[in-house]
């Protein structure tokens, strides 16, 4: 509320404006109406009073004239004429002492006089006055013969007929004086000579009726007559017995009798009270009629109106102010709330304190309400932003502090000003340089210089940092106690607004150990250079050897394929011709001895061929050159082929042979010829070892999990357990003595193992001395 007074608040503005407006309007309106009323009133009053004064004045004048006329008639009356002339000439009037004598003497005249007067009821007293001023005859007989003491006691000269007011016995009367005129000479001339006058006394009733009728004059209005002597000659409304007593020396009186002018003005009347007065000047009658109303009464209403207007204005203004106050409060309350809110928000932003959050409650739907809602949003976002910023600042500060602490703990930090004087250092600097803080502050950093780097180095450094760029380098320094230490330094210049460096921060890391290590490393490297040369050479040699070996392998491979072909080729005709020889159809019959010889040759050639193949395969095993080709293999087919191939031989050797696949229709993805090779190898072994006439060999195939397990069973002597380890190795034979008996190179099992492994399977044996041997190999159904 206290802020009401200062026009800084919306409240006071609104109120002041309303006040001004209302007052202005009221004042304007009331002034206009006031002035209008004033004028209207004045007009009315003027009209009124003019009519009163003029009307009444004119009435009085005409009344007076009527009366003059009335008496004037008597003045030219013959009878009166005669009476007057007769009486005037009578000398005895002077001597008459009593009225009785008078009446007796002039009985006739009196009778005629009364006869003439008979009609006029309003004549209270009529006197006939001679030119010498004597009352010749009066209706009041006591007056007869006396001297007339009234006005106009002129001695019979020209008497203008007039009326004047007088007070007789304290009663107001009008005196009409009219000359009595006698026709002089004959009737030819119209001139009349006055021979006396008639003085008639009449009442003032008709005048009073006119004057004392106060209708239209309000409460304080009066109309009265004033004579030349400035005496009121009619009654006053306010003062008793004013007639002929009250002096009225006022403006209209003076103006009338001095200038003959009528006025209407506001002046002070005979009571010294300001009045509004209108005068009617009848100077010729020796009268002025004044119609007056108290100014107060006339303008009273106006003044009252003015006062009422003022009061009303004040009241209305007060009401308007009150209303304005209320309205502005209503309007400004939310605005003030907003302002307060804004203040709070600003304060809270500045103080980085947490802020009690509440909404500005403004319910209006108008622009202010909308503004408040927007303000709320802004405020919320400001506060949020502020909070976030504060949090960020806290975080960053913490980060920075952490970093600074970390830095401080690990690095040597010094700050120099633009004149290269140390201004700040950290603990690590004192520790490593062995100088105290006091010894360092204010010094040039070259206090720790050791002279290792040339001057040009420091020149370069200075140039770089002075131009505002970062400098990095390694420097060897010397501590206070004379020891050297190496640092890797980064100098960061900080620029002021004009872009010139104002201070430099150097962050250094102690790399003394590193430097020592570097040096030792270099020494070691020098020493090891030789050995590394040797190693290089050795590596070179190894590489060459490797290449050589690979070349040799390649040669071997080529040699192999060539050899196999070359070795096998001669065998073809050998076996071919042997076969031909055996066939009588081709080359004729042979004797049994010849046939035996041919068979021997053929079977040995066949063996030789097998041996060559084995050898080549073994070589290929070595070189990892065994080639396989995978295709769908049907076990039944395979077994049929095997059976066909071996049946003759087995029959010849009288060996019982069973070959069986269970179930039928087994299939696998593998290399058929290689499988046959393995089965052949195993078969040949078995054939070699089964007993002469009682031999039995069984070949089976069965299905287990995802594998097909082949088995070559024989009822040979079996294999002792201690030989099993070496069974599948190259050139191994259970009994070398048996070799000679059985032939063979001992490669068969090794090659079989190589093939089976290459096809993704396993090979093993179940055997017991005296119980025969079962050679198994399994192959996966798919690859």
């Amino acid at each position: 509320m206290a802020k009401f007074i200062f026009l800084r608040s919306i409240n006071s503005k609104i109120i002041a404006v309303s006040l001004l407006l209302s007052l202005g309007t009221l004042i304007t309106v009331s002034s206009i109406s006031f002035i209008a009323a004033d004028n209207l009133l004045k007009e009315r009053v003027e009209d009124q009073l003019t009519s009163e004064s003029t009307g009444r004045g004119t009435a009085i004048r005409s009344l007076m004239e009527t009366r003059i006329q009335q008496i004037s008639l008597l003045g030219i009356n013959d009878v009166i004429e005669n009476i007057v002339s007769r009486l005037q000439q009578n000398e005895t009037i002077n001597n008459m002492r009593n009225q009785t004598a008078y009446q007796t003497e002039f009985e006739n005249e009196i009778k005629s006089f009364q006869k003439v007067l008979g009609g006029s009821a309003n004549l209270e007293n009529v006197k006939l006055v001679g030119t010498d001023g004597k009352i010749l005859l009066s209706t009041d007989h006591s007056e007869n013969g006396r001297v007339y003491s009234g006005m106009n006691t002129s001695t019979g000269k020209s008497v203008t007929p007039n009326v004047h007011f007088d007070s007789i016995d304290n009663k107001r009367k009008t005196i009409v004086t009219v000359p009595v005129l006698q026709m002089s000479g004959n009737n030819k001339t119209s001139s009349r000579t006055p021979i006396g006058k008639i003085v008639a006394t009449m009442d003032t009733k008709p005048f009073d009726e006119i004057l004392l009728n106060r209708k239209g004059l309000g409460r304080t209005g009066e109309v009265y007559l004033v004579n030349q002597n400035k005496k009121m000659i009619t009654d006053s409304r306010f003062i008793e017995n004013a007639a002929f007593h009250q002096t009225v020396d006022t403006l209209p009186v003076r103006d009338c009798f001095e200038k003959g002018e009528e006025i209407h003005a506001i002046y002070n009347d005979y009571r010294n009270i300001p009045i509004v007065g209108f005068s009617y000047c009848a100077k010729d009658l020796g009268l002025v009629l004044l119609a007056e109303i108290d100014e107060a009464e006339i303008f009273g209403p106006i003044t009252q109106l003015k006062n009422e207007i003022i009061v009303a204005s004040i009241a209305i203004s007060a009401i308007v102010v009150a209303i304005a106050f209320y309205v502005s409060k209503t309007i400004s309350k939310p605005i003030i709330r907003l302002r307060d809110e804004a203040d709070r928000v600003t304060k809270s932003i500045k103080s980085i304190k947490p802020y009690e959050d509440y909404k500005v409650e403004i319910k209006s739907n108008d622009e202010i309400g909308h503004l408040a809602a927007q303000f709320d949003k802004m405020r919320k976002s400001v506060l949020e932003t502020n909070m976030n910023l504060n949090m960020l600042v806290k975080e960053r500060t913490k980060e920075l502090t952490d970093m600074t602490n970390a830095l401080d703990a690990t690095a040597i930090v010094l700050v120099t000003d633009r004149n290269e004087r140390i201004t700040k250092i950290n603990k690590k600097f004192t520790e490593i340089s062995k100088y105290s803080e006091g010894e360092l502050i204010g010094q040039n950093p070259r206090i720790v210089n050791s002279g290792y780097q040339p001057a040009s180095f420091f020149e370069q450094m200075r140039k770089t940092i002075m131009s505002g760029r970062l400098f990095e380098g390694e420097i060897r320094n010397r501590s206070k106690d004379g020891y050297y230490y190496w640092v890797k330094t980064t100098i960061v210049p900080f620029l002021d607004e004009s872009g010139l460096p104002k201070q430099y921060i150097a962050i250094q890391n102690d790399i003394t150990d590193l430097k020592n290590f570097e040096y030792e490393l270099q020494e070691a490297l020098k020493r090891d250079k030789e050995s590394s040369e040797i190693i290089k050479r050795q590596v070179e040699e190894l590489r060459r050897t490797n290449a050589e070996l690979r070349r040799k392998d390649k040669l071997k491979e080529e040699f192999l394929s060539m050899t196999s072909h070359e070795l096998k080729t001669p065998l073809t005709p050998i076996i071919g011709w042997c076969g031909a020889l055996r066939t009588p159809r081709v080359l004729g019959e042979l004797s049994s001895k010849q046939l035996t010889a041919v068979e021997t040759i053929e079977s040995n050639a066949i063996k030789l061929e097998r041996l060559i193949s084995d050898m080549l395969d073994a070589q290929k095993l070595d070189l990892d050159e065994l080639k396989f080709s995978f295709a769908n293999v049907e076990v039944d087919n395979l077994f049929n082929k095997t059976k066909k191939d071996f049946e003759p031989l087995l029959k010849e050797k009288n060996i019982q042979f069973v070959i069986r696949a269970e179930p039928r229709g087994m299939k696998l993805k593998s290399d058929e010829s290689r499988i046959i090779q393995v089965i052949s190898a195993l078969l040949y072994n078995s054939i070699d070892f089964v007993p002469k006439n009682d031999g039995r060999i069984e070949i089976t195939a069965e299905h287990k999990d995802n594998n097909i397990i082949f088995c070559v069973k024989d009822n040979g002597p079996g294999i002792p357990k201690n030989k099993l380890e070496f069974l599948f190795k190259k050139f191994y034979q259970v009994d070398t003595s048996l070799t000679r008996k059985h032939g063979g190179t001992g490669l068969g099992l090794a090659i079989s193992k190589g093939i089976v492994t290459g096809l993704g399977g396993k090979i093993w044996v179940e055997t017991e001395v005296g119980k025969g041997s079962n050679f198994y190999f399994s192959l996966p159904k798919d690859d």
Partner: protein
Amino acid sequence: MKLLVIDDSPDITDLFVKVLTTIGHEVAATDNGKDGLDLLNRQKFDAVFLDIAMPNFSGLDVIENLLKNKKLKDNPVVLFTASSITDIEVKDLIRKGVHSCIRKPVGIETLFEKLEELGNIQYEENATRKLS
């Protein structure tokens, strides 16, 4: 039957000629592929026994040539080789039109079987080729 043998070893060609003519076949023989092709250009054979490993012009070159000239159909080729040609390679050649393959050294029985096989084809010209 009319047979052609192409092999660089004279012993083998001798064997073929001697043995097969004895049992009643007509046998022509060359020791190199080029001559073989010449012969094939001039006449049709019921079978061609083709060695692979020959100097200058190998058996495979002969096959290629025959493929180009579309003579494989009319002249069934039986590969007759000691070289370590893989089964897959053989299958591939068979797919291309070669009849079959027998490995050296060959037993006389195998040879006779093969001839019977080839002979059957003779009588079944309209039947589809049997793939071994």
